[in-house]
């Protein structure tokens, strides 16, 4: 091999190591390795001593035949994910995007900022706000309104309707991401289409139906998959607001895996439960990947000098 070619190859390798190396190392250690570890762990009997003494299929057998609480948590997960998604993360997000793009720019930006507030606040603070809202005594914000404004009896939502609380709490956060994505999709519709439609006598609803909705088809399908996945795996607000309770009433599947591992010390069983989520995650990620604009993303770079 001639010297200059070898020098160039060396420089290419050095550049690869310099630019991509750090990212590759981090991802290998804390992203790829955990997947492998989880896969192995699911076939062991690790408990709170963190020692592995045997390889076994017991975890999967327990999942399939002996865990009645697992079935209940799957039901809870379905209710939680589907209602939050249908009411807030897609429908309400769409409504917010439509409304905030229809009012003057400054007002629209203000209301979008308000709706992003929960997402930007720390989760512990957000959970505390909910605790103060649904506080069962007369100081709870909701009860103050119910009792003093509407003259109704105070309610204890956290114990009597815990699912409602976690759906609302997650929905208020979930709506904002869809709102942002849909807003930018609406903004990217060429202005002249709206003018043309108006000149042809279209009303507001007809414009929404025939101009905005077609433009939102891809963002909506993308958001639906993205949000299904993130609702399926996220249990942060549930853990903070209800702790999965009362008893196991709001323990969704991902929280169930977490509680098994970190509350009961059944790390191997928790890992086996997570394995299901990991498989779902990979499938959904591949699905989303079909919806992305791959051609633009994979466009070859234009300078190849190293």
């Amino acid at each position: 091999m001639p010297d200059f070619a070898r020098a160039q190859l060396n420089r290419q390798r050095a550049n690869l190591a310099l630019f991509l190396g750090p990212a590759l190392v981090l991802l290998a250690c804390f992203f790829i390795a955990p997947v492998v570890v989880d896969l192995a762990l699911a076939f062991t009997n690790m408990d709170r001593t963190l020692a592995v003494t045997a390889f076994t299929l017991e975890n999967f057998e327990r999942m399939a035949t002996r865990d009645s609480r697992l079935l209940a948590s799957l039901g809870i997960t379905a209710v939680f994910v589907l209602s939050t998604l249908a009411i807030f993360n897609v429908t309400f997000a769409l409504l917010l995007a439509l409304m905030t793009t229809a009012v003057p720019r400054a007002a629209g930006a203000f209301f979008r900022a308000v709706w992003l507030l929960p997402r930007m606040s720390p989760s512990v603070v957000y959970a505390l706000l909910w605790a103060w809202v649904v506080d069962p005594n007369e100081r709870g914000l909701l009860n103050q309104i119910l009792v003093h404004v509407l003259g109704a009896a105070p309610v204890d939502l956290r114990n009597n309707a815990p699912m409602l609380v976690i759906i609302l709490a997650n929905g208020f956060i979930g709506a904002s991401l869809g709102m942002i994505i849909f807003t930018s999709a609406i903004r990217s519709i060429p202005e002249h289409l709206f003018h043309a439609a108006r000149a042809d006598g279209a009303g507001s609803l007809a414009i929404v139906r025939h101009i905005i909705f077609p433009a939102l088809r891809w963002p909506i399908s993308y958001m639906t998959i993205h949000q299904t996945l993130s609702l399926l795996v996220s249990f942060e607000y549930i853990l903070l607001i209800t702790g999965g309770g009362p008893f196991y009433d709001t323990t969704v599947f991902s929280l169930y895996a977490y509680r098994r591992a970190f509350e009961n010390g059944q790390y191997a069983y928790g890992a086996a439960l997570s394995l299901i989520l990991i498989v779902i995650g990979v499938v959904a990620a591949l699905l989303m990947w079909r919806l992305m604009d791959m051609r633009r993303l994979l466009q070859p770079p234009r300078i190849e000098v190293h």
Partner: protein
Amino acid sequence: MDVGGALPAVKAPRPDWLALARRARITRRAAQSTLLAVLLLVSIPIILPYFWMVVISLTARSGGVSTRVLWSGCAVIVPAVLIYTTIHVLTPSRRLRLVAGVVMSAIGAVLLGALVGTDLHFANYRFLWNPNIVEEIRSKATAGGQFPSVWIAFRNSLALALSQTAIILAVASLAGYYISRFAFRGREAFLQGMLVLHAFPAMTLIIPIFLILHWVGLLDTIAGVMLVLATIELPFYVFVMKGFFDGVPWDIEMSAMTDGATRRQAFWMVVLPHVRVGLIAVAVFAFIRAWEEYIFVRTMLIENKNWVMSLYLFWVSDDIMGVDYGIVAAVSVFYVLPSLLLYVFCQRYLTQMTIGGIRG
């Protein structure tokens, strides 16, 4: 329309353009006002709890929360905002709007001072200079030695958020530049893999990550959590940075290199300054995310000298929520403030981030 005549009206009455325009204006204004009212209505459940938190932190005295302040506050602020908004909608004049804003805030401030001024106090914020606040409230026997000073948690949070942000900035801009500009074998496969990781929920990996940190001895250290937090969000930031690098015209790099710069010099001295907006956006976003992190720190930080703000607030609320609302609310306000300030002042940077290539 002329119905009576045999012939259609020879001369259609000239439309009253002014009246039509007026009607259109009124309809439009009515529609806009309705929309604004609806938006305001659905936003109340968000605004009111934040306001309630601030009110509790400023008025609660050990044990009791006065709900009177909340509603008198609302009774002053809501009409003031409504009047101002109405004026804003009715007049296009910038001067009038400004005058209306100043007048309404002045009236509001005076009324608030008269109605609730005597209830306001800062005693709930005494945790800032009294490190043993929980002991003071719950007696030394029950809470002795459990709680560090809030400033230790604050310092830990700051260290975690800043170092995580620095790692993300460095690693994501290097990798983003490389996949934006260089052709290498396996580039397509690498990009596809990154996309899958970007969409993949890292929360599901919390159990194995916990074990890996335990095995390498980084469990219960800020450094361990920092590496984990930086990594699980990395694919997202790499794509964000790639998007910004894609937007830099390649001619400027080319001309730098014809002038004799190496590729690395061109990256460092020419291209990087061009993506300043992207770097700021990524930094702000990463900082806010690390500042608010709860689940991972809850799982991986145990000793109270390693507590970050989220853990401090969680344990304070866990311990004294039943006894003293005011302190909990005050800690919340103190904790949420940096995030909110960053968010409010850097919003124009954050809105420039695009998650590369969503079709639509």
